[in-house]
């Protein structure tokens, strides 16, 4: 997301994500860096957030990002270096999680889905170990998925409009 200053770029990155999170939970997203360029930084929910209408499910969101120079579009923008969107049970077992970590120590560098032990599936090769390949997944897609498939009750009457709008922004500015 571009901005005239690093801070503006971070706000342009954070605000749509927060608005989408607010559709399904009362969780608050925070970042740890508004100013410093090229540093691996974190966006995360301050706490696991119970999903609206499904208090038995907790949302976990973590992204790593960098503020970079983008003279053509910015002159600054935020680029995502990692994401994790996961849903856990109350007792801390992951049900599913969308991950992408192209620069970490893991040999798995493609976007993928984990099926967690919280599903109750008794196949250890599947639960947590298996990396189901996916394309890059937008946070907005996860929000829609939660509403459509997990009967999470959206807090905003206009959630569909907002989701489409922010997804269009993401598509416009993503770098791959």
């Amino acid at each position, binding site marked *: 997301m571009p901005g005239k200053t690093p801070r503006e770029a971070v706000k342009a990155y954070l605000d749509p994500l927060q608005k989408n999170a607010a559709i399904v939970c009362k969780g608050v997203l925070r970042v740890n*860096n*508004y*100013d410093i360029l090229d540093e691996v930084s974190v966006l995360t929910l301050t706490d696991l957030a119970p999903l609206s209408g499904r208090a038995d499910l907790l949302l976990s969101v973590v992204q790593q990002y960098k503020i970079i120079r983008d003279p053509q579009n910015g002159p600054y923008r935020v680029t995502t270096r990692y994401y994790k969107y996961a849903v856990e049970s109350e007792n*801390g077992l992951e049900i599913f999680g969308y991950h992408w970590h192209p620069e970490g120590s893991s040999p798995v560098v493609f976007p993928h889905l984990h099926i967690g032990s919280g599903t109750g599936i008794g196949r250890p090769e599947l639960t947590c170990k298996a990396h189901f390949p996916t394309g890059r997944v937008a946070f907005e897609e996860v929000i829609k998925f939660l509403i459509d498939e997990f009967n999470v009750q959206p807090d905003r009457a206009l959630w569909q409009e907002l989701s489409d709008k922010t997804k269009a922004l993401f598509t416009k500015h993503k770098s791959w």
Partner: protein
Amino acid sequence: MKLESNMSSAPVASHKRSSSEGVADPDILERAAQRYLQMSTKEFVEKWNSGFFKQHPELAHKAADVALLLPLLSAR
């Protein structure tokens, strides 16, 4: 990922933060380490840097998730 890694920086002009701009703080890392690994941030960092989790693959997935939050320890 070592804690010391990824800490290179190119500072730009700092700005006064408004009261509406909360900042993610290291307490988030502490809560994650406690929830997923039942250990403190200090213990987690020591074990992460020593390679402890490579010898304990059953913990590797959770440890990797917690390690994502290590940049929260960067000084601001």
